[in-house]
C-alpha cells in the first residue's frame, strides 16, 4: 500500500470444505499474538479441546461428528461425516461491540477490521454481551476484552495473518473482502454440493456483512453459529427515538395535567 492510497477492506474467507482440522491456525494465532495457553481439559467433544472462541482462543476449530442421515427408504448406512470449521471473530460491518464500548477501545481500523486497543479497554464487559456471536471475551486475571485482531500488526506490513499463513490447505484465505466474496461465489459454484452455502457474506444481513465469512456444508446451527445474527445495537437509534417521543409525551401530559388544575 503506497501513501495516500485508501486501503481496501480486508477480511477472511474460511472455506470449511477443505479444512482438515489440523489446528495449525489456533497454534499460529497464539504464537504470533502471545495468547496464553488455555489449560489441559479433555472436553470429549470429538477432537475439539478448545471448546469455543474466548479471550485465550482467537481461532477455534469446531469438529462436528455425526452419522450421515440415511437416504429416504434406505437403512442406516453407518456412514459418518466429520465437519471441521475454523471459527474466528467476524469483523462485522456494524459491530455491536464497538457501538457499546464506552471508552472507544474498540475501533474500526483503516482495513475496516475491528480491534480492541488493550491500553484503552477498561474491562467493563459491555462488548461481551453485545456480540451476537459470543466471540469477544474478558480474560480472567486481566479483566480486559480480547479477540482476533486480524493480525493488525502483520497486515499493515503486507504480511498475511498468522492463521492464514499457517493453514496448509488454504481453508483460511485472507485478502480484500470484495475479492474474497467473488472467490467464494466461484468456489461454491465449483463445489456443486447442494448442502454448501456461504455464511456472513451478504452486506444486507443483520450485521451489514461479516469481514470474516464462511463456506459451510450445512445449516449454521450445525456449527454453533446463529442463523440470522443481528447487531444488538442495530435498533438502538429507533429505540432512542421512541424513548424520546415517550418522554416528550409524558412531559406534555404532565404539563397538561398542571394546566388542567388552574382554578
Amino acid at each position, binding site marked *: 500500500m503506497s501513501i495516500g492510497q485508501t486501503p481496501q477492506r480486508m477480511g477472511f474467507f474460511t472455506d470449511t470444505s477443505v*479444512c482438515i482440522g489440523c489446528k495449525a491456525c489456533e497454534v499460529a494465532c497464539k504464537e504470533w499474538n502471545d495468547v496464553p495457553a488455555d489449560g*489441559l481439559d*479433555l472436553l470429549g467433544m470429538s477432537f475439539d479441546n478448545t471448546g469455543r472462541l474466548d479471550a485465550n482462543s482467537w481461532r477455534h476449530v469446531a469438529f462436528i461428528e455425526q452419522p450421515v442421515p440415511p437416504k429416504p427408504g434406505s437403512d442406516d448406512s453407518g456412514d459418518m461425516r466429520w465437519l471441521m470449521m475454523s471459527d474466528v471473530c467476524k469483523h462485522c460491518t456494524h459491530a455491536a461491540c464497538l457501538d457499546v464500548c464506552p471508552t472507544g477501545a474498540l475501533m474500526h481500523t483503516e482495513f475496516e477490521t475491528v480491534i480492541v486497543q488493550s491500553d484503552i479497554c477498561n474491562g467493563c464487559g459491555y462488548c461481551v454481551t453485545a456480540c451476537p456471536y459470543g466471540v469477544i471475551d474478558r480474560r480472567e486475571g486481566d479483566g480486559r476484552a480480547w479477540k482476533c485482531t486480524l493480525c493488525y500488526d502483520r497486515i499493515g506490513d503486507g504480511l498475511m495473518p498468522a492463521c492464514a499463513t499457517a493453514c496448509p490447505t488454504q481453508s483460511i484465505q485472507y485478502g480484500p473482502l470484495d475479492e474474497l466474496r467473488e472467490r467464494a461465489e466461484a468456489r461454491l459454484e465449483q463445489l456443486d454440493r447442494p448442502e454448501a452455502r456461504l455464511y456472513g457474506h451478504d452486506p444486507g444481513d443483520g450485521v451489514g456483512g461479516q469481514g470474516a465469512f464462511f463456506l459451510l456444508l450445512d445449516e449454521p446451527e450445525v456449527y454453533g453459529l446463529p442463523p440470522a445474527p443481528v447487531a444488538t445495537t442495530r435498533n438502538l437509534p429507533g429505540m432512542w427515538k421512541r424513548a424520546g417521543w415517550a418522554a416528550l409525551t409524558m412531559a406534555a401530559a404532565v404539563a397538561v395535567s398542571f394546566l388542567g388544575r388552574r382554578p
Partner: protein
Amino acid sequence: MAEAHPVGFQWVMEAKARGAKVIHIDPRFTRTSAVADTFVPIRAGSDIAFLGGVVNYILSNELDFREYVVAYTNAATIVREEFRDTEDLDGLFSGFDEATQAYDPSSWQYEGHQDHDPEHGHAIRETAGGLRHESHGPPVPAETQRDETLQHPRCVYQILKRHFARYTPEVVEQVCGVAPEDFAAVCEAWTRNSGRERTTALVYSVGWTQHSVGVQYIRTGAIIQLLLGNMGRPGGGIMALRGHASIQGSTDIPTLFNLLPGYLPMPTAGKHDTFDEWADAIRHPGQKGFWGNARAFGVSLLKAYFGDAATPANDYGFGYLPRMTGDHGTYQQVLSMLDGKIKGYFLLGQNPAVGSAHGRAQRLGMAQLDWLVVRDLYEIESATFWRDAPEIETGEIVTEECKTEVFLLPAASHVEKEGTFTQTQRLLQWRQKAVDPPGDCRSELWFFYHLGRLVKDRLRLSTLERDRAVRDLAWDYPTHGVHDEPSAEAVLREINGYRVADGAVVSGFAELKDDGSTACGCWIYSGVYAGGVNAAARRTPASSDDPLGLEWGWAWPMNRRMLYNRASADPQGRPWSERKAYVFWDEAKGEWTGPDVPDFEKTKPPSYRPEPGAAGPAAIAGDDPFVMQGDGKGWLFVPSGLVDGPLPTHYEPAESPVANPLYGQQANPTRKRYQRSENPMNPVRSEVFPFVFTTSRLTEHHTAGGMSRTLDYLAELQPAMFVEVSPALAAERGLEHLGWAHVVTSRSAIEARVMVTQRMRPLRIDGRPVHQIWLPYHWGTSGLTTGDSANDLVGIVLDPNVLIQETKVGTCDVRPGRRPRGAALRALVDDYNRRAGL
C-alpha cells in the same frame, strides 16, 4: 495422511480441487476420511487380502496396461518348474525350511537360472537384508526366457493370475470386512483412472510398513501399480510418507546396523573377509545394470573414511569396517541389554521408552546398562526411566539400585543448526541456521566431531591393533565460531566426492574410481556439490520453463525427480499419450529429453540391444526402464531378495481374532520372532484378548511426544491419553464417554480416557463381529500432559525382510475403570496370561 502429514496433504486437497478423486482406506474414520470422496473401513492387518482382490479384479477382467506390462515388467518371464505356490502348499511357497523357519529361494528362480545361488532367507532375515534393495533390486542373471504372449503356464503373468484368483470380492468381504459394493467402487475407480491417458498415485504412511508382512503390503501395491502402468509416469507411483524429517536421509546415509552409505551392505563376518569378496557380492560380475561400478563406490567411501591411510596395500582399510555376525537390530539390542550383553547406548532424538514396541522391555533393558547418553531437546522418558518409569511403581526398577548412568545432553533443534534434510522424493534441502542454540545445546555434527576428536586424541599413542581404525580415521573438518562448530558444507562436499590429488569436487558418481584416486562419502549423493555449488541450497521455484523446479534443492540420483522415468515413454521412446508426456526420445537430437533428468543413459536409443554376454550398464536394452533391476524389468514376481515369498499372500497378523480364512498357514511363517518370557504373544482367536487394537498419531502431537507434550500450545489441543471405541463396544463392555478404561495385552495393561465415537465401527469378519479399538501412542510419564504409553501393549514381532515391528495391529481386552497400581498391575497381566494359556 491429513492426520500425520497435514502439510503434505495440501497437495491432495489441491488435486481434489482439480477433480482428482480421493479414496481413503483405513481401520478408522480419520481427518483424511472426512475430506475423502470415498472412505472404506477395513480390518487392521488385512490389507493384502484387499489389494490382492484388486489384483484379481485387474487380471480377471484383463484391465492391465498390456503393452506396458509386457515390455516393462517381468510378466513374460518364465519361472522354474520347481516353483510351487501357496495355492499348492496351503499357504507356503516351495523351499520352506522348517528348521530355520525360512525359505531357500532356489525354486523361485527364473527358468535357466539353475546355477544362480540366491541368498537364503535365513541369512537375509538376520541382517534385514531387504533394506539393501532400496536403490536397486537383488542380483539375478541378465538373460531370461520370456513368452511375450503371456500364455506360458509358468510365465509370471499366469502365475500371478492363479495366485490371486481366490481373492474374490467375497473373500475380501470375509477377510477385510469390506462390503462388495465399496470394494467394487475402489477397483473401478483405480482401473478407470489408469492407462495411457491417466495415472493413479498410491500413497501410504509408515504405519503401512509396521506389520509382520509390511514389505509384502507395499509389494502388493507395487504389483497393482505395475499392472496398471502407474510406475515411472507423472501422477503415478507409490508415495511413502515418512514419519519424521529426513527419514529418507537416515537410510541413504544410514543409522542402520546393516548398511553403509548409498545402500552398500555392511560386510558380514566370514563372508566378506576381503574387499574383493565384498565388492563382488554387490556387483555380481556379469549382472546387468549400474551396480557394476560397486568397486568404485566402495573404494571411494573407504578413501573418505580413512584418507591417506586407505591404500591398495591394506584393501583401502576395508578390514577396519565392523562385521555383522547376525541380527544387531534395535529390538535384538534391547533384548541383549536385558541379558546384560550391551553396556552402553546412545539415544539421539529417539525416545524408545515411549516410542518403541514393548515399552516395558525397552525400559527394563535400559535399566541394565552401565551408561546411557541421551541427546534431546527435552528431558524425555528415556532419560528419566530410572526415577519415573511405570516399573518404579511395580517395583521392577528401584531407583536406588538402578546402575545406569544417564548423560542427558541438550541438543540443538533444526532451526539452530545447518545441514540437509532429505525428504521422501529423495530431495536434499539445505537448512540455514536461523538462531544460535541456547545454552549448552549443540548440533549432532558438533557432538560427533568433537567426540571423535577427543577419542582419537586419547588413542593417539596407542599401539593396540584394535585402535588402529580410529587412529586412521580422516577427521579433519574446518570449524568456526566460539564453539568450534564443524562446517556442515565441508561434510556435504565430502559426501559429494572429490579427487584426492587436487581436492577438486567430482560432478557425479560416474567420475568415481576404484583405484583410490577419488573419495566420496555417499555415491548416490554424488553431484550435490558439483562445480563447488551447494545444490541442496538452491531455491529457484518451479516455472513454466522448469515445471518440476529442478533448481529447487537437489534429488538423488543426479537430480532426477522421478525414478525409472524412461517408463513414461513407450518402448519406441514416444510418450504414451500427449497428456502424460514426460521423458521421451528425441530422434533428431539422438537423446532422451523432457522436463526431468532422464533416468536412462542419455544417448542410448530405444532400439539399442546388448551384445550377448554384455554386463553392467551396457547390458541394459534401450527399452528396459528399470535400470537398477538385474533384468531391467519391474518385478511383479520377485525371484530373490525377499524372505517371505516371491508373491504377497494374505497372512493374519501375529495376533489375530480369527483363523486365516485362506490357508492353513495362520501368520507369516518367516516373521522374526523373539520367543522369550518377557515377550509373550496373544494366542490366535483368544477369548481372553478378543478385540483388535491399532495405534497411530494425532496431528496435534509428534511421535513419542518429546516435542509436543512439552509445549503448552500443543499439549492443550490433545490434553490426555484416550482410547477410541465404537458405541457398540462401549455398550458391551460398559465403557462411559470420558470415563476411564484400561486395555490389557499379554505384555501390559494401560489406562486411558474413553472416547466413544461412531468413527470406530465393528466389522463382520469371517461371519462374526470383530471390534477394533484405536489408541494414540504419544503419551508417557513426563511433559505437560502425561499418560500411559500405547506401545507398552505391543509385543516384539517383526517383518522378516527389514525387521520392522508389528505395531499397527494386535489383540487386547478392554475394561472399564483405571488399571491397578503397583504390584497389582503385574498380577492383573499374569492373570490374563494364565487364562489365555500363556
